[in-house]
């Protein structure tokens, strides 16, 4: 069963912006899928069409087999949406917000209150249930939107940058939570700017840029294409004294350098050269710019010819 099947989707906004230029995307049921792309790529627009907040221009969209043209209500019932921006009534209490949301999906009030306790507790908000939403911190508001999206117990959760503006501890908590509900069978789609986040959570990934899908593949396959990595080395000697041949490298500061290492080449030669100069490597870390590298690689490819990888891991 396909959770999502999008074909030839285009969206031109009233102001003439062509936000989507013909997107094809398939997400299998049970998948944990990342939609990755820079600002303005069209991630939120895609999600808007899926959740029927944005009307599409062309193309077809099916959600668990329900076309949004002919079976919109059935399609809507399958989705729980956590939007990018806070969109609840700031003056309502948490309990009112989630219970009403369940009501809109036809969940009777008694049942809705039970579920509110369950999900607000899971997201550590039950104590705050009678507070107004405006009194919450940013991270709590995000969690409130997750709880709200779960109230009708949808088969699929779509989260638009759920961890934006959330500190690392709460982010980890959110990741664990999402992983757990994915293991329990919920399909999850999330958008993010962070490759690390996608890498940690997702099995499959789509990269979108300027309204087009650049890559749609498994996380593993994608990371394999990342063949150059940059490492930062902290040295026992001044970095000005270093001599390295055969590698692209830069001085970072007095005692650290940065080396670009191609996968097939390996690092031994770096160590050997430094060793020969009597320089010790005190510590080493991966520079966290892999996403940039990935984008540079991808966008370069796209400039030559738009390309979609069919390969999908399960």
């Amino acid at each position, binding site marked *: 069963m396909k959770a999502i099947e999008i074909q030839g989707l285009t969206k031109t906004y009233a102001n003439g912006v062509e936000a989507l230029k013909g997107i094809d995307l398939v997400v299998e049921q049970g998948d944990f899928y990342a939609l990755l792309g820079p600002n303005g790529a069209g991630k939120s627009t895609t999600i808007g069409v899926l959740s029927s907040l944005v009307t599409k221009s062309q193309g077809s969209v099916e959600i668990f087999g329900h076309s949004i043209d002919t079976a919109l209500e059935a399609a809507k019932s399958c989705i729980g949406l956590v939007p990018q921006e806070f969109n609840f009534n700031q*003056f309502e209490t948490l309990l009112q917000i989630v219970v009403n949301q369940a009501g809109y*999906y036809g969940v*009777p009030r008694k049942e809705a209150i039970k579920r509110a306790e369950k999900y607000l507790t899971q997201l550590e908000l039950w104590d705050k249930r009678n507070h107004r939403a405006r009194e919450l911190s940013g991270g709590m508001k995000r969690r409130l939107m997750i709880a709200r999206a779960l109230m009708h117990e949808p088969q699929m959760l779509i989260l638009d940058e759920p961890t934006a503006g959330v500190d690392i501890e709460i982010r980890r908590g959110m990741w664990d939570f999402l992983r757990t509900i994915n293991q329990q069978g919920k399909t999850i789609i999330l958008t993010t700017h962070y490759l690390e986040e996608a890498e940690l959570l997702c099995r499959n990934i789509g990269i979108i840029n300027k309204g087009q899908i650049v890559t749609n593949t498994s996380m593993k396959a994608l990371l394999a294409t990342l063949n150059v990595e940059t490492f930062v080395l902290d040295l026992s000697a001044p970095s000005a004294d270093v001599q390295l041949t055969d590698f692209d490298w830069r001085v970072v500061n007095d005692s650290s350098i940065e080396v670009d290492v191609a996968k097939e080449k390996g690092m031994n030669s770096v160590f050997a050269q430094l060793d020969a100069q009597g320089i010790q490597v005190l510590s080493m870390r991966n520079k966290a710019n892999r996403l940039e590298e990935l984008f540079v690689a991808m966008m370069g490819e796209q400039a030559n010819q738009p390309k979609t990888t069919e390969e999908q891991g399960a």
Partner: protein
Amino acid sequence: MSASVNYIALKSIVRKECTRFLRIWVQTLVPPAITTTLYFVIFGGLIGSRVGEMGGVSYMDYIVPGLIMMSVITSSYSNVASSFFSAKFQRNIEELLVAPVPNYIIVLGYVIGGMCRGLLVGCVVTLVAFLFSDLHFHHVGILVVVILLTAMLFALGGMFNALFAKTFDDVSIIPTFVLTPLTYLGGVFYSISLLPEVWQWVSKLNPIVYMVNTFRYGFLGISDIPVAPSIAMLIAMTIVLFMVILNMLKRGVGIRS
């Protein structure tokens, strides 16, 4: 969607709407009570005693039905206009748009919410009126039908306004520049039969004249205008506006990009 699902959705919207205006009751329920009390004291009491009779009853008795109607109109209209617009503005309307709620349920939910406020305010004003005049009910059936239809029509009007509105100014412009003048010229304070013939004709283009007169008939048994056609007109206008709004929602006007 099945009927019970829709019914639960409708109840949720109405409950949310009622919670909203009750939460801010100082803004929503108190002002109309104060304003109409002032009207009663000034127009009915001080000035009315010099006016004498109008339409065969005391001036106070004459203006009471119109004042009740005026408060119902304003409250129903502004409730939906401001609630729906702020839902658009804060984007919490998306809570409804992502859910499988049919458009007519959304409209009905907001409209019933607006009617609840309008009718509650109407009751408050009626109670105040009992202090100032000896009201009696000539035809309760007509009163109920007319007030329900009027509240509904203006709640729909508020929704129409909110759909078009882009700023908070847009939801106060129509009440100020259209609704208030039409109400004041709607025969609340005078019988249109007192006007020169031309102005009588002009007045008859104002729908509020029909509502006020029909409502007054329910209390006093007097009207400048035949009652049955007025009610038919009210029903027709309500249905047309409902259809127009449904059509706008279907096309996503003002709510979907």
